[in-house]
C-alpha cells in the first residue's frame, strides 16, 4: 500500500467530475437500466417518444399555421399556461420514477445546496418531457414572434419558459415530499386517473362551448390575465415585443426570470429542510391519531347488516369501496359514467331510455374478479372456506354488498332518464331490462371470479392487471359482457316482440319479469361459482398473489 494512494486515491487518478455532469450521467444510466429491465418497458418508452414527436410536430405545425392570425396570442399564451399547470400538478398525481430527484437518497452525501439545485435542475431537463416542452414552447413563440425585437425576445423566452416549467414541477414536488411519501399521497396518486378523466370531460365541455360560440372571443380575458403570469408571461412578452410594446415585453420577460429565481430558491429551501427532517413515511405510523371510530370492530354498518359471514363480508366490501383507492376509483368511475352517459344523451335530446341500462352495465362489471380485488389477503378468506356452502355464503355476501348500491342507483338513473326524456311510459320496461342485465352481470361475474381470477397490482394507478394475465382479464370481462348480453336475449326479445306486435299495454310486465329473471341469474351464477371456488382455493390464491 503506497502512501499516495492511501491519502488521496481519487485525486491521484483523475480529476473530480462536476456535480452537474455526475447527475446527468446518473440520470441517463438510471434511464438505461430501467429500460433494460423489461422489453415491454422499452417498447412503451419508444412508443411514447414516437407519439410525443408526432404530437409535437403536429402542434408546431398548428402554431405555424396560426401565425399571424388574430387569436394566435390568445391561444399560445393559454396553451403555455395550461402546460405550466400540468407541470405543476404532475408530481402530485404521477409518482415520479426519477430517483435522482429523491432527496432522501442524497441525504448521506456531502453536498452544498446551491450546486445541488443547479445539478438537479440540469438533470431534470434531460428527458422526453422537457424536450417536448421545449418544442411546444418553440411552437408557441413561433406563432407570435414578428420582427427583430420579437425574435430576440423569443430566443430568450423559449429556454426560460422550459426551465420555469421544470423548476416549477420540481419545487412543488420537493415542497410536497412529505405528502407524496405518505400513504395518503400514494392513495392520491392512485386516484390520478380519475382526475384526468374528469379533467378531460371539462376540457371537452369547454371545447364544445367554444365551438358553439365560434371563436376565441370568450378566452381573451383569461389570456389577458395568464399573459402576465409566469411562465406564459414570456410568451406574452414575445407578442408585446412583436407589437412594438417594448416596455411591456421587458416587464413580462423580467417577471418570468424573477419567477425562475424565486422557484429555485424555494426548491433549495425545501431540499435543505428535507435533508434534516424525517420523511413523511414514518410520521403517520408514530402519531397516535387514527380513524376516529367508535364502538368496537363494527360501526353503524355492523348494526344494520346481518350477522355471521354475510354481514362481515358485506361490511368489509362496502368499507373497501370507500377506503381502498383502487376500488374507490373503479366505483367512482362506474357511478359517474353510469349517470353521465344516459343523462347526457337524454339532455341532448338524442337519447332513449334504454341508455339507462348503461348504469347497470358499468356497475355489474364490478362483480368480476372479486378475489383479485382482495389481493393476496385472499388467504384470510381461503383459510375460512372449506365447503361449497361457505363459498356460496362468501360470494352471496359480496353480491349483496354490490347490490345494496347498484339496485337503488339503477332505479335512480332509469327514473332520472325517464324524467328528462318525459318518457314515463317506457320506465317499467327499461327498469326491467336494467335489472335483468345487472343480474346477468353479477351472476356471470361470480363464475368468472372463481374460474378466471387475476391479480390487480396495488402500486400503480394505471396497471389493473399483473403482467402475463392481461389476456385472462380481457377474456373474462369481454366474455362476460357478451355472455350477459346473450343471457338477456329473452328479455330483449320479449321487449321487441311486445313493441312490434303492438301490445304496449303488456310492456309493464317486463319489470317484474326482468327483476325475477335477474334474481334467478344471480342465484344460478352463485350456485355455479361456489363449488368451483371451494375446489380451487390454492389456485385462486396463487393467481391473485402475482405482482
Amino acid at each position, binding site marked *: 500500500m503506497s502512501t499516495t494512494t*492511501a491519502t488521496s486515491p481519487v485525486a491521484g487518478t483523475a480529476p473530480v467530475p462536476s456535480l452537474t455532469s455526475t447527475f446527468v450521467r446518473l440520470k441517463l444510466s438510471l434511464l438505461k437500466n430501467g429500460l433494460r429491465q423489461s422489453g415491454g418497458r422499452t417498447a412503451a418508452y419508444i412508443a411514447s417518444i414516437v407519439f410525443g414527436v408526432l404530437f409535437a410536430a403536429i402542434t408546431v405545425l398548428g402554431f405555424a399555421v396560426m401565425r399571424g392570425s388574430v387569436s394566435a396570442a390568445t391561444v399560445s399564451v393559454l396553451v403555455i399556461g395550461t402546460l405550466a399547470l400540468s407541470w405543476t400538478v404532475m408530481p402530485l398525481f404521477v409518482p415520479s420514477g426519477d430517483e435522482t430527484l429523491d432527496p432522501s437518497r442524497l441525504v448521506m452525501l456531502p453536498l452544498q445546496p446551491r450546486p445541488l439545485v443547479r445539478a438537479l435542475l440540469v438533470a431534470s431537463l434531460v428527458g422526453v418531457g422537457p424536450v417536448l416542452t421545449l418544442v411546444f414552447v418553440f411552437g408557441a413563440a413561433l406563432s407570435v414572434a414578428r420582427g427583430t425585437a420579437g425574435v430576440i425576445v423569443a430566443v430568450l423566452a423559449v429556454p426560460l419558459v422550459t426551465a420555469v416549467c421544470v423548476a416549477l414541477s420540481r419545487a412543488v414536488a420537493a415542497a410536497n415530499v412529505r405528502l407524496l411519501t405518505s400513504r395518503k399521497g400514494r392513495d392520491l396518486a392512485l386516484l390520478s386517473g380519475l382526475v384526468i378523466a374528469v379533467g378531460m370531460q371539462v376540457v371537452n365541455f369547454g371545447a364544445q362551448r367554444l365551438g358553439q360560440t365560434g371563436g376565441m372571443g370568450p378566452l381573451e380575458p383569461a389570456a389577458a390575465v395568464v399573459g402576465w403570469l409566469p411562465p406564459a408571461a414570456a410568451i406574452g412578452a414575445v407578442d408585446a415585443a412583436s407589437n412594438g410594446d417594448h416596455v411591456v415585453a421587458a416587464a413580462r420577460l423580467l417577471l418570468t426570470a424573477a419567477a425562475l429565481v424565486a422557484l429555485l430558491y424555494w426548491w433549495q429551501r425545501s431540499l435543505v429542510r428535507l435533508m434534516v427532517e424525517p420523511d413523511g413515511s414514518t410520521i403517520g*405510523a408514530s402519531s397516535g391519531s387514527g380513524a376516529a371510530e367508535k364502538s368496537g*370492530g*363494527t360501526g353503524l354498518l355492523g348494526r344494520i347488516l346481518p350477522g355471521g359471514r354475510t354481514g*362481515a363480508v358485506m361490511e*368489509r366490501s362496502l*368499507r373497501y369501496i370507500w377506503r381502498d383507492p383502487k376500488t374507490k376509483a373503479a366505483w367512482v368511475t362506474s357511478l359517474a359514467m353510469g349517470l353521465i352517459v344516459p343523462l347526457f344523451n337524454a339532455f341532448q335530446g338524442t337519447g332513449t331510455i334504454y341508455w339507462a341500462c348503461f348504469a347497470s352495465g358499468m356497475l355489474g362489471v364490478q362483480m368480476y374478479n372479486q378475489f383479485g380485488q382482495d389481493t393476496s389477503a385472499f388467504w384470510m378468506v381461503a*383459510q*375460512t372456506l372449506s365447503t361449497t356452502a361457505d363459498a356460496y355464503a362468501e360470494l352471496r355476501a359480496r353480491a349483496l354488498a354490490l347490490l345494496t348500491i347498484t339496485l337503488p342507483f339503477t332505479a335512480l338513473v332509469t327514473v332520472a332518464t325517464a324524467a328528462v326524456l318525459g318518457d314515463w311510459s317506457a320506465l317499467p320496461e327499461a327498469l326491467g331490462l336494467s335489472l335483468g342485465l345487472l343480474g346477468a352481470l353479477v351472476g356471470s361475474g361470480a363464475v368468472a371470479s372463481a374460474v378466471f381470477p387475476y391479480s390487480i397490482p396495488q402500486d400503480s394507478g394505471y396497471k389493473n392487471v399483473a403482467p402475463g394475465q392481461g389476456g385472462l382479464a380481457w377474456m373474462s370481462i369481454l366474455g362476460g359482457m357478451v355472455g350477459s348480453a346473450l343471457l338477456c336475449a329473452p328479455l330483449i326479445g320479449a321487449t321487441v316482440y311486445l313493441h312490434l306486435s303492438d301490445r304496449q299495454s303488456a310492456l309493464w310486465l317486463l319489470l317484474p319479469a326482468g327483476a325475477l329473471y335477474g334474481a334467478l341469474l344471480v342465484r344460478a351464477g352463485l350456485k355455479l361459482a361456489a363449488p368451483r371456488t371451494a375446489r380451487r382455493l390454492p389456485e385462486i390464491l396463487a393467481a391473485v398473489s402475482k405482482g
Partner: protein
Amino acid sequence: MPDQAFDGVFEEAGAAAGTAPGAGAVPAVRVEGLWKRFGQQIAVNGIDLVLPAGKFIGLVGPNGAGKTTTLSMITGLLRPDQGRITVAGHDVWSDPESVARVKARIGILPEGLRLFERLSGRELLAYSGRLRGLPGDEVDKRAAQLLDVLDLTGSQNKLVVDYSTGMRKKIGLAAALLHNPEVLFLDEPFEGVDPVSAQTIRGVLERYTQSGATVVFSSHVMELVESLCDWVAVMAAGRIRAQGPLAEVRGDRPSLQAAFLELVGANGRETAGESLDWLGGGAQR
C-alpha cells in the same frame, strides 16, 4: 390485568387439543413424501416430518430452503404435487369435510401475503373472527383482550396499512389466535420486528404452548430458535436434514448455530477478507 384477559382467550386451548404433552397421541403434524416443484426448481424434495403436539417447534433453514413452501402446503394455501399431510389427525388435502376440520383447528401467520390492510386493527379482528363463524359478541370480547395483551389498543382504530412491521405481525398473530387454534403456524414471525414487539410476541407464544397447544414457526435466527424451541427440524435445499428434540439435533456441538452450519454444509467460509487490505481506521480515504 392483562394476564387475566389473556387466560380468557386461551381458556380451553389444552382441552381442545385433547393431547397432554408427551402423551404419545396423534402428532400435531405428519408429513409423508411431500413434493413441490415450481417449473425447473424443486422447492420441496420429498420430505417426511413428524411434529409432536404440545411443543414449541422451530423449522430452521437458510433462505430458499423451502420453509415457506412447506408451511404453505401444510396450512392448505398451496397444493402439493405429491405427498400426504395430516394436521391433528385430519388430512389437509382430501375431502372438504376433513379440510374444514383442519382449517378450524389451525391458525396461521404467513410471510409475504397481505392482510386486509384497509381495515383498522380492530375491524380486521372483527372480520376474521366472524368469517370463522364465532358469535359477534365473543369475537369482540376476544379481540379487545388480544389487542390489550399485544399492546395494540392505542392503535386499534388506525388502518393496518399505516402499521409498522412489528404491529402488522402482532395484528396478524391476534387474527391467527382469535379462534383458539390447536396448532399455530408462523412464518418468520420475528422478521423485521423491533425487540419490544418481539418480546411481546414471545410472551404470548410461550403462554400459548404452556396451555398445551402447538406452535410451529420458521426462522433463520438460530439464537431465537435455541432459546424458544424444544423441538427443531432443519431444512436445506428442499430436504429435511435433521429433526428431533433440540438437544438431540444440537448433539455435542456448542450451539444450534454450529450444528446448523454443519448440517447445511456452510462451514469453512469464515474469513474472506484478505483482499480488503486498505480497509481499517487511521487512513484518510
